[in-house]
């Protein structure tokens, strides 16, 4: 199992997109360019989002957590995309409702069922309106990296099986 890859290169600010597909393409292509995921990751994540929407009506800022099967992933990472303008995503667990999402947390997981503490910490971030708002307003990638490293405690995960 690889260590998680997380630095400024997976944080994208002012992502311009008209649709969720375009968001996923841009964020996915960045991960392909970094060789963190296979080319197949992009169509897989778009298809998965279509079938099982991941938009979450979190308080303050709505987020989405697109993810797909482990076979498309070389190295696990959490990529963050702050959108220039909100884009409609389907609401998780609902086949009709959509929600204007402004921050996308694209999860590339390389092993099923193994990232519990990371995911729980991530969910704690989603439940913290203040943190979401500061990600939204922050113009500096290093500051966002610092903020998330503080909240997500990646170091503690490195030894996790």
């Amino acid at each position, binding site marked *: 199992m690889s260590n998680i890859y997380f630095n400024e290169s997976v944080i994208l600010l002012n992502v311009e997109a008209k649709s969720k597909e375009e968001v996923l393409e841009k964020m996915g292509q960045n991960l392909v360019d970094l060789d963190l995921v296979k080319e197949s990751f992009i169509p897989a994540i778009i298809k998965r989002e279509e079938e099982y929407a991941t938009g*979450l009506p979190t*308080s303050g800022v709505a987020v989405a*957590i697109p993810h797909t099967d*482990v076979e498309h992933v070389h190295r696990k990472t959490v990529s963050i995309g702050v959108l220039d303008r909100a884009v409609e995503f389907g609401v998780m667990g609902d086949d009709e409702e959509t929600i204007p999402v402004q921050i996308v947390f694209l999860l590339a997981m390389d092993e099923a069922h193994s990232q519990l503490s990371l*995911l729980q910490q991530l*969910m704690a971030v*989603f439940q913290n309106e203040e943190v979401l708002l500061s990600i939204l307003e922050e113009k500096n990638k290093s500051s966002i990296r610092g903020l998330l490293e503080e909240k997500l405690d990646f170091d503690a995960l490195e030894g996790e099986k």
Partner: protein
Amino acid sequence: MAKKQVLVACGAGIATSTVVNGAIEDMAKENNLDVDLVQIKIAEVGSYEDTADLLVTTAMTQKDYRFPVINARSFLTGIGTEETKKEILQELKK
């Protein structure tokens, strides 16, 4: 009381169900309940149709099952978590 089989499902069986699984595990421990938790993809629910007592899921289900289905989105958003927990607990204690 017979051990309940609880299915925890999301689209991929990787991300959201992992979080929900952890939350139910904690709940069961707190309440001294012996629960058989099975983490699956929503597409796999069919193979547990005869054995499951409850389905907790973040994905949508169009199908009707013979066991109750509880939506677990609140575990991810933090909005309405207490109510969802109560609902689950009620089913587990049946």
